[in-house]
């Protein structure tokens, strides 16, 4: 009886995770696309030095970060993938969403402060582990914002 309840609960979480996860992911991707569109005038690069002849002024540091949680379905799918090996597609989309979100936040901060170029962009990734196995991934994007003069 207990195993049956556990099985049903597990299946319920799997279905809930799959549906809710899909909805949040597609919503997030839509939001990201429109925000990225709005930021398309900004230049970002990870160059250590600006090309000669490009005159800029007003340097300041910009940061953007996002912590994105996995859903239950992704966790189970990744667990299965761990047995057979291969690319974990469910986690790949999670990472790229988090990275895009962090990038967009960094660029928005730069634009709000009047900059149009962000250079020497660096990314950092860390896993967030809660006490009750609440797992997520944090992506930090940072760079130096300047204004073209």
């Amino acid at each position: 009886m207990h195993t049956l309840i556990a099985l049903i609960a597990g299946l319920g979480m799997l279905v809930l995770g799959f549906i809710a996860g899909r909805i949040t992911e597609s919503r997030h991707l839509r939001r990201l696309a429109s925000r990225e569109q709005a930021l398309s005038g900004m230049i970002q690069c990870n160059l250590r030095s600006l090309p000669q002849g490009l005159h800029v002024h007003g340097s300041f540091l910009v940061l953007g970060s996002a912590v994105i949680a996995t859903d239950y379905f992704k966790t189970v799918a990744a667990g299965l993938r761990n047995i057979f090996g291969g690319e974990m597609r469910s986690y790949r989309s999670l990472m790229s969403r988090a990275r895009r979100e962090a990038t967009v936040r960094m660029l928005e901060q730069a634009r709000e402060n009047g900059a149009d170029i962000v250079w020497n962009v660096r990314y950092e990734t860390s896993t967030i582990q809660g006490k009750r196995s609440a797992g997520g991934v944090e992506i930090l994007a940072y760079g130096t914002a300047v204004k073209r003069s």
Partner: protein
Amino acid sequence: MIVVNTEYIPGKKIVAIKGLVQGNTVRAKHVGRDIMASFKNIVGGELKGYTELLVESRREALSRMLSQAQELGANAVVNVRFATSSITAGAAELYVYGTAVTVVDAAPAQG
């Protein structure tokens, strides 16, 4: 105080290196946030509580680094780097470091 993560500042000239400056903070999330987060682990999505906490803590670490730079008499910090490490489940250390320098305006043609 100018803070950048690049090796130089366009339009400025570094005239003196004051030394390495750093700031850190170790933060834990409170239980309520952990419970919210474990619920989020079923449905997915952004953990806003954690994002805010990390942004706040990073600001704290940055301000500690800046006060060190101020004590050294610097007017800019260049080549800033961030590092994050989880110490135990539920706590994270945020670390930021850079080089404190003194800068002056460069000749305008050099950009």
